[in-house]
C-alpha cells in the first residue's frame, strides 16, 4: 500500500463512519446542520492527526499490555489543549465548536486509528492516515448534515434553499436523531452497492 492510498482510503474505501462503522455517536449527534458537522470534523481531524503522530513516535517504548491507557492519556491531553487554546485564542470559533471539543475524547475513530494503525506504522504514514481519516470523517458529516439540514429545515449553511413555504412545514424528524439513522443507512447502502459492490 503506497502513501497516496494510505491518505485517500479514509475518504471512501475505508470511510470511518460509512464503511468501518465507528464514530457513529458523534456522527449522529453533530450532523443536524452542515456547520455543526464541519466543526466537529475539523476538531476531530486536528486531534486525530496529532495523536496518531505522537503514538507512532512512542510505539516501540510502550508495553503492549498498557497501550490503551497510554493512548487515552495522550488523546485526552490533546483534546484539553485544543479546548484551552480555542477558548484563549479563538473565542468566536469556540462559541460555535466549543460544545463538540470534549466529545472528541470519546470519538472511537481516534482510539481506533491509534490501535489499528498508528501503533504499527511509521510517523509519516500515521500522520497521513490521521489526516485522511479526519478528512473522510469531516466530508461524511458534511454530506449527512447537508441532507438533514435541507430536508429538515429547508436551509443550507443557514441560507434558505427550499423557499419559505417549505420552511413553514419542514420534515422535522430529519434533524432529530431518527433522521441521522435514516440518512446514514441510505448512504451506507449506496456505498455497499456502488463502491464495495457487495450487493
Amino acid at each position, binding site marked *: 500500500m503506497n502513501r497516496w492510498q494510505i491518505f485517500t482510503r479514509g475518504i471512501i474505501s475505508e470511510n470511518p463512519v460509512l464503511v468501518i462503522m465507528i464514530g457513529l455517536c458523534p456522527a449522529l449527534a453533530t450532523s443536524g446542520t452542515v456547520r455543526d458537522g464541519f466543526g466537529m470534523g475539523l476538531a476531530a481531524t486536528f486531534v486525530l492527526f496529532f495523536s496518531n503522530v505522537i503514538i507512532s513516535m512512542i510505539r516501540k517504548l510502550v508495553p503492549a499490555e498498557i497501550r490503551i491507557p497510554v493512548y487515552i492519556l495522550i488523546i485526552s491531553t490533546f483534546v484539553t489543549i485544543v479546548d484551552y487554546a480555542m*477558548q484563549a485564542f479563538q*473565542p468566536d470559533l469556540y462559541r460555535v465548536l466549543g460544545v463538540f471539543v470534549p466529545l472528541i475524547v470519546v470519538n472511537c475513530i481516534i482510539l481506533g486509528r491509534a490501535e489499528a494503525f498508528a501503533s504499527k506504522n511509521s510517523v509519516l504514514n500515521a500522520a497521513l492516515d490521521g489526516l485522511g481519516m479526519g478528512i473522510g470523517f469531516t466530508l461524511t458529516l458534511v454530506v449527512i448534515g447537508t441532507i438533514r439540514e435541507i430536508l*429538515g429545515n429547508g436551509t443550507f449553511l443557514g441560507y434558505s434553499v427550499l423557499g419559505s413555504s417549505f420552511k413553514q412545514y419542514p420534515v422535522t424528524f430529519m434533524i*432529530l436523531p431518527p433522521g441521522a439513522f435514516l440518512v446514514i443507512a441510505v448512504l451506507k447502502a449506496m456505498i455497499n452497492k456502488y463502491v464495495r459492490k457487495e450487493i
Partner: protein
Amino acid sequence: MTSTKKMIITLVVVAVVCATVLALFYSFTVPLIAKTRVDLALAGLKEVAEADSFLEIISDTLWNAIGPDENVVGIVFRVWPQGYGGLIPITVGLDNDRKITGIRIAGASEGLKETPGLGVKITEADFRGQFIGKSADEVRLKKDGGLIDAITAATISSKAVCDGVRNGIEKYAQYGGPEFDKRNIFPDADDFIAIIKDSLWYALKAGDTLGIVFLASGEGYLDRIVVAVGLDRNKKIVGVDILMSQETAGIGELIREKDFLAKIRDGKPETISGATVSSEAVITAVKEAAKSYGEYLK
C-alpha cells in the same frame, strides 16, 4: 527489568509528562481565557443595548446602560427561564421607555440545552429580532395574544423565552429610572446639583444658576405620568419633557408630541382632543409643581 516494572514506569512517565504539559499550558492560557470571558460578557451586553459602558447593579444580573454623556440610556438584565431541555440564559436590553432594544440568547457552547435544530433556533436573528421595540405586554406568542411568532415545532422554547423576557421586564423595569437627561431642558448648563434627591436640581453654568429642573407627576388616564420641568430665574418655564407615561397608544400617548409640550412651555397650554384626561394631568402637574418649587429660585 521485569515487565511489570516496565509497565508501571511507562505509565507513570506518560502520566507525568501529560500532566506537566497540561499544567504548563493551563497556567499559560488561563489569564487569556479569563480575559476573553470578560470581553465576551461585555460584548454580550453591547449586543443588546447601545451604550458606552455598563454599571453593575446586581452581580451578573442587572446593569445600568450608560450613554456617551454619562447619562443612563437604559438597563440590561439577565433571566434564566426554564425551557424544554434546561434553563435558557437570556440577556435583555431596555431603553428608558422600557421598550426592548435587543435580546441575546446564549448558544449551545454557553450552556443552552434546547433540542439541536429545533429549540436552538431561539438563538437565531429571525426569532430574536421580533422582540426589538416591543414592550412587556406585547412579548407573548401570537396564540396568547402577543406579537411574537413561535418557532415551528419549538413552541415550548419560544414560550419560555417570551415568559422569561416579560417577567424580567416586570421585575427590573423599576430599576435605573426615572433617570433622565437634564440637558434636554437646559442644554447650556455644565453642571446640575441635586437639591432634593431624585426630584429637584439646580442647573449651573460656570458657577451661575441658570434655573431649576424638577420632576412633577399626576394621575393620567391609565397610570401615573412623570414629567420633567425646567424653570429659568424668572420662573418662566423653559422646557417640559415626559419621562414616564403608559397612556393609551395613539391617544393618551399624544402628550409626548413636541407641539403639546411647546405650548405648555410658552404658557399657552391646550388639551389634546380625545386625550383630555392625560393632557390635563400633565398641564396641572406642571403648573402646581412650578408654583411649589418656584421658591427655590429666590
